């Protein structure tokens, strides 16, 4: 009897130990691109009160490998990761393929995680599929927007101001339109002094060229397609779209030679070396660009909002690419309850305030707090920038459409095609892609010169200054 009791007790202890061991083994793996924000999540996760849960990163470089790592795992319906941060435009691909957990179910069951803790536009931008459906497959974990950085020392220099005024008959100020930006960039382009007016991405990799070119395209009143009819011809190659991409291509004249294949690394490196007067760059990088240990011009760097443009219809628009990522959940993960608990903790204001000190949160409570807005020299601009965001197609065919547009815009940058030819070829190939995927294109024709006026009108009679 005694022997039996000892055996039972031993079994119970062993069971408890095994149970503890099993709980301690709970790892939540996430895929993201390596960088400051992934490091920040890791730092914060170390303080997660439930010590039996470990958050493990599976980081890859920014670019196609990152998308392909997530996509390949979904393709084999694997659970090598539990959650992932993916680009807003990838939501359609992953949710459309049935691989992402519908977040609405979590909203319904959780007492804290609710749709209203995030700005509605951000939630829609990073997680909604199909557009306007109210179905969410991602949370705005890391918001981002294109921004402008400029050399305050050059803009505030009285000599430069006087010379600019003498040449252009107006004051030297941070540009509000691309028309103004072109003049300022031209003014500061002095190759003999190793100074150039403007830096921007133009690389063929991933979305480098098109996140930039789309920002011009939308600001000039162009559109990528008509979501109602699925027409691309007449929209992507509309006169307004051509104006926008032409303005983008022309700006390379004011950048260092060879900058037509730059990615964000080269834009940062060039700006940090003091080679550029202005640069178009993601807010994501402002932390390092404001750091004197990283940038030789950190103290002289100002952060602003990208210009808009006065389109051929005389209206002003300011639209630029959304950046950042949403957090999506792998449908094949076997650790959903643990993950939801972690997310309920992670999206608390306390954790998000820590995250927002280095990256851009999507939590409304933090975004609206005066403390966060005054934390550094660019958070206030970032919260203003959020209202001007626009995005690629939210369609499962996004990777194909993106690659085609990247290729054609890159052709325009290198000069192997005119902008009009490149956009017309892209439009033809996009329609072919959509038709192959089974979309019915309702070819009504007669797209207006400025298609923004019939898709999502954003034109204003006056230029609204935001950089003063």
């Amino acid at each position, binding site marked *: 009897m005694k022997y039996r009791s000892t055996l039972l007790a031993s079994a119970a202890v062993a069971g408890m130990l095994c149970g503890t061991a099993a709980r301690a083994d709970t790892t939540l793996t996430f895929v993201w691109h390596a960088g400051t924000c992934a490091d920040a999540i890791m730092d914060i996760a170390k303080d997660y009160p439930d010590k039996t849960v470990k958050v493990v990163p599976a980081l890859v470089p920014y670019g*196609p490998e990152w*998308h*392909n790592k997530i*996509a*390949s795992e*979904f*393709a*084999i*319906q694997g659970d090598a990761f539990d959650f992932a941060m993916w680009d807003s435009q990838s939501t359609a*691909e992953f949710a*459309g*393929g*049935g*691989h992402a957990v519908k977040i609405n179910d979590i909203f319904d069951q959780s007492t804290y995680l609710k749709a209203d803790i995030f700005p509605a536009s951000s939630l829609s931008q990073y997680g909604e599929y199909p557009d306007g459906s109210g179905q969410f497959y991602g949370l705005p974990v890391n918001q981002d927007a294109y921004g402008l950085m400029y050399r305050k020392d050059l803009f505030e220099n009285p000599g430069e101001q006087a010379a600019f005024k003498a040449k252009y008959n107006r004051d030297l100020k941070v540009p509000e339109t691309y028309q103004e930006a072109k003049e300022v960039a031209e003014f500061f382009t002095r190759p003999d002094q190793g100074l150039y007016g403007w830096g921007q991405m*133009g*690389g*063929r*990799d*991933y979305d480098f060229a098109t996140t930039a070119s789309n920002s011009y395209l939308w600001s000039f009143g162009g559109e990528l397609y008509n979501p109602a009819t699925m027409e691309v011809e007449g929209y992507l190659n509309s006169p307004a779209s051509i104006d926008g991409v032409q303005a983008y291509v022309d700006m390379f004249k004011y950048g*260092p*030679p*060879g*900058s*037509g*294949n730059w990615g964000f690394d*080269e834009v940062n*490196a*060039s700006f940090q*070396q003091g*080679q550029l007067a202005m640069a178009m760059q993601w807010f994501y990088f402002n932390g390092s660009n404001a750091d004197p240990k990283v940038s030789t011009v950190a103290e002289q760097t100002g952060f602003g909002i990208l210009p808009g443009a006065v389109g051929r219809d005389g209206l002003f628009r300011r639209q630029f690419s959304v950046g950042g990522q949403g957090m999506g959940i792998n449908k094949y993960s076997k650790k959903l309850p643990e993950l939801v608990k972690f997310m309920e903790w992670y999206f608390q204001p306390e954790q998000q305030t820590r995250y927002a000190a280095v990256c851009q949160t999507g939590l409304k409570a933090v975004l609206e707090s005066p403390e966060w807005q005054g934390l550094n020299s660019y958070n206030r601009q970032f919260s203003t920038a959020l209202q001007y965001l626009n995005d690629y197609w939210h369609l*499962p065919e996004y*990777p*194909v459409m993106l*690659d085609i547009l*990247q*290729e*054609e815009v*890159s*052709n325009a*940058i*290198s*000069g*192997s*095609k005119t902008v009009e030819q490149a956009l017309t070829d892209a439009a033809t190939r996009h329609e072919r892609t959509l038709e192959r995927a089974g979309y019915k294109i309702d070819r009504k024709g007669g797209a207006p010169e400025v298609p923004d006026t019939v898709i999502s009108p954003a034109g204003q009679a006056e230029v609204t200054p935001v950089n003063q």
Partner: protein
Amino acid sequence: MDQPLQKRSTGRLMILGFLSPTILLLLFMVAYPIISLVYYSFHNFSAMRPADGMSWAGLGNYEYLLTDSAIWQRFVFTGKFVFICVTMQMILGIFVGYQLQKTFRGRDFLFTALMLPMMLSPVVAGFLWRYMLNSEWGVVNFLLSGIGLPKIEWLSQATPALWAAAVVDTWMWTPFIALLATAAFRGIPETIYEAAEVDGASPAYVFFRVTLPMSAPVLFIALILRLIDCFKQYDLFVAFTGGGPGSSTETVSFAVAKTAFSYFYTGEASALAVILLCIIMGLAMILVRHLSQMGER
């Protein structure tokens, strides 16, 4: 009479026994994927959208690819790249190999040092050269400016990008040709050179009429390996140019990988892979046949 028969059948069983693990492994690792590849190539199917199912496409994927001018553009670029790289690597490799077969002080160290580029991952080499060829702060343009030459926009224009990629591939793989060439040259008996010397043959005559013909089979194998490897070059371009500008440095292998793992057009990617496989196999068969004939001669 019975004993030799029994011996023979036992021998056959032994051979089968030894070969069967390899045969099974080959069937699993080679035959099965190839059969699957061909099967998928006749279907419309996306691994990313399994719910859409798989539908019979017949020759549709092949027809689409072979009538797509963009794919032909990739083939033309691949052809140019292979031709330039293999030509440069063979000429340089043979030259370097010829010098390295000679005995001189520091030869072993030089030999090892020359092998270093070959030991790098193509992705690492791609990133490394991408920075070295940066038009503004890259070391190559810095050196060009130093001798009064204009800076070149290496990676933002199609033609310089092709040549830059060929130079990087040549930098990486010339040592491989040099390695094989050195081995081949050193394998030629010394007496043949002595006989040529006695006959009063010039060094050029000896090189072209003795050294090269006698090492031709090894050099031919090197040529086949480089042709195949260059034809399927992908990773270097991913890091080096991303396929750009436009699609001017996109190889067929790059297009296969992109169609398969970025677009997830699994059927179409399979068809393109089959086409590529047929080309490489055809090319290899012609060359191997030529090699066999060379051996017979």
